[in-house]
């Protein structure tokens, strides 16, 4: 048997009696190598910045903080780690939400930004920051943004299923509502006090410079609460990808499953937006990058896309704070700038990228 077929053969894997996963060696290799890449990037990101450290120093500070000078420990643990972790968690959440949305709508260009969560969250936040500064304490701002995101996503789902749900309608109603809300937020940006607007714009561009350990903790819980169900629904996603009828014939009722899956992806997106602002392109690009390695098998696609999303946001954030230092570019903008041209070429080339 050649190596290639051996790598592609599904191997049964039984973590608990009665629960069988089939894993391919190839997928395992890709997962492990991306974990390694993320770890290296993590060390590099923690070592670079205005106070430069070597990667070995960072490693020692992380493993044994007590033996190192106080100053180093503070730089790494207080300033850099929360930011890095938040970037990775948000990226993973957005990428997983993107995978789910693209499979539900069977459209290669669907992304979490289109279901209105980002627009709803940004408008809510702008209202709180510009019109009523001080009304909502800073700690609660992400929560209010998340509420706004959920509200708008619910509205879009109701509107698009008013005359029977269809994926095309969901996407296009999302585009309409998003552009209406962005007109509202532009109004706030244009007429607000310029200082408040500047800080709001930084947040809207997707920036992570004010992340605290508390936010990281909250984000981790959300990723766990919504990400695990997402991973467990890989079979349903595999079937939905093939069409509603095929899914129904294999016992997956799209009318019952899709609202649940949408809720999961909205929760993932809303938590990420509340932590890091709008990172529009991550949810669009990471799933496509992951698909090049493992195709449409969602059991592997979801964790792999999560890793790639973490990688993208971490890279974007680190480049954003080091390239033009002391000026900080928001991570979301860097990602768009680096990723979009590549994405356009990719979409042009791909044969199976079309909507069916």
């Amino acid at each position, binding site marked *: 048997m050649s190596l290639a077929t051996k790598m592609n053969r599904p191997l049964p894997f039984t973590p608990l009696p009665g629960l069988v996963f089939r894993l391919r060696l190839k997928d395992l290799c890709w997962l492990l190598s991306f974990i390694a890449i993320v770890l290296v990037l993590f060390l590099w990101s923690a070592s670079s910045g205005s106070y430069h450290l070597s990667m070995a120093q960072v490693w020692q500070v992380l493993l044994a903080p007590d033996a190192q000078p106080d100053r180093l420990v503070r730089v790494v643990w207080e300033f850099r780690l929360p930011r890095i972790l938040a970037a990775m968690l948000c990226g993973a959440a957005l990428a997983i939400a993107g995978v789910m949305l693209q499979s539900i709508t069977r459209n290669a260009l669907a992304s979490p930004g289109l279901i209105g969560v980002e627009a709803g969250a940004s408008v809510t936040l702008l209202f709180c920051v510009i019109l009523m500064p001080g009304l909502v304490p800073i700690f609660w701002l992400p929560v209010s943004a998340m509420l706004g995101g959920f509200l708008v996503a619910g509205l879009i789902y109701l509107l698009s299923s008013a005359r029977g749900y269809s994926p095309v309608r969901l996407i296009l109603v999302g585009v309409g509502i998003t*552009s*209406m809300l962005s007109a509202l937020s532009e109004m706030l940006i244009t007429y607000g006090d310029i200082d408040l607007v500047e800080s709001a714009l930084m947040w809207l561009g997707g920036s992570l410079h004010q992340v605290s350990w508390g936010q990281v903790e909250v984000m981790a819980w959300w990723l766990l609460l919504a990400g695990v169900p997402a991973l467990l629904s890989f079979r349903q996603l595999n079937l939905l990808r093939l069409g509603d009828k095929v899914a129904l014939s294999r016992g997956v009722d799209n009318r019952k499953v899709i609202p649940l899956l949408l809720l999961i992806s909205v929760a993932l997106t809303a938590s990420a937006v509340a932590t890091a602002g709008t990172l529009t392109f991550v949810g669009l690009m990471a799933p496509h990058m992951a698909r090049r390695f493992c195709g449409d098998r969602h059991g592997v696609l979801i964790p792999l896309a999560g890793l790639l999303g973490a990688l993208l946001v971490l890279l974007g954030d680190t480049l954003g704070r080091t390239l033009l230092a002391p000026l900080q570019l928001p991570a979301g903008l860097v990602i768009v700038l680096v990723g979009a041209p590549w994405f356009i070429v990719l979409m042009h080339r791909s044969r199976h990228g079309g909507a069916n």
Partner: protein
Amino acid sequence: MAERVLSAPAEAGAALWPRRLLGLALLLLLLALMAGLHLSLGASSLEAGSLWQALVDYNPQDAGQNIIREIRQPRLVVALVVGAALAVAGVLMQAVSNNPLADPGLLGINSGAAFFVVGGLLMLPGSQHGWLPLYAFAGAAFAALLVLLLSGRQQSPERLVLAGVAVTALFAAMTAILLIVDQQGLDKLRHWLTGAIGASDLKKLAWVWPWLLAGLVLTALLARSLNAHHLGDRAAASLGVNVGLLKLASLALVIVLSGSVVAVAGPIGFVGLVVPHMARLLVRSDYRWLLPYALVLGAVLLVSADLAARIVVRPYEINTGIITALVGAPVFIALVIGRMR
């Protein structure tokens, strides 16, 4: 219904002439009415008498007449031209792409032009203002190319719209980076970036009017070919229309029309989406009538939007582009819910 089907097409066309002309005249009357309101209402409202005097027998000493001639009249002219150009661009796009959801704003062409204009202004501060339309054309062409690349060969409406959204996000992000790097630029440009019409824009109109005029005239020449194209690519080819050339020419015209508009007033969305549908309700899809109807309706819509922008939160102003988005997006959603499967 039966009579209309039985009568010969030429006869039906002849019978429609007076009705179509009457409709156009009524629309022009509506436009005149809106223009009058536009001139007289605002932060300080003026009476019809002083409006008439300002137009016929202008007295520069009178403050009210001065406002009309110096501030509101230039703004009215800009709104008229911008609305008409955007509406015609929308008709062209929807006709050629066979897509009821096409619009220069939604498909990213406006934001591409806006990015190039901002980049040109910030990077090459000494450049001549006459170059601005050329920056805008380059940006619009670049954005159109990207959207075509992204949407691929299957021209399904949702894929085209999503490609437009992605391209818009790309250019918006690049504009945002430019403005973060140059903070003073942000303060200067943030009004223009949401689509604003102001009195000073008459000067900018002077740079683009030859382009706009040429674009509109050439579009009028395309009306017959567009009618043939409406029957389908093959039917058009059999009627002697070079379909590839028609598509290319329409794309170039859309780029020139919407690029000029962006250079004058910033990215104003949704006019190109809404107006063709309104016009089609009135005259079905005979492009010889659709184009003039859309031209006038576009002007009416933008003048009314500009009027609303000035009087909703008197004495402050909202940007016109924001009003058109707030009005146009619900129309878009209604189209999606009503028309799509």
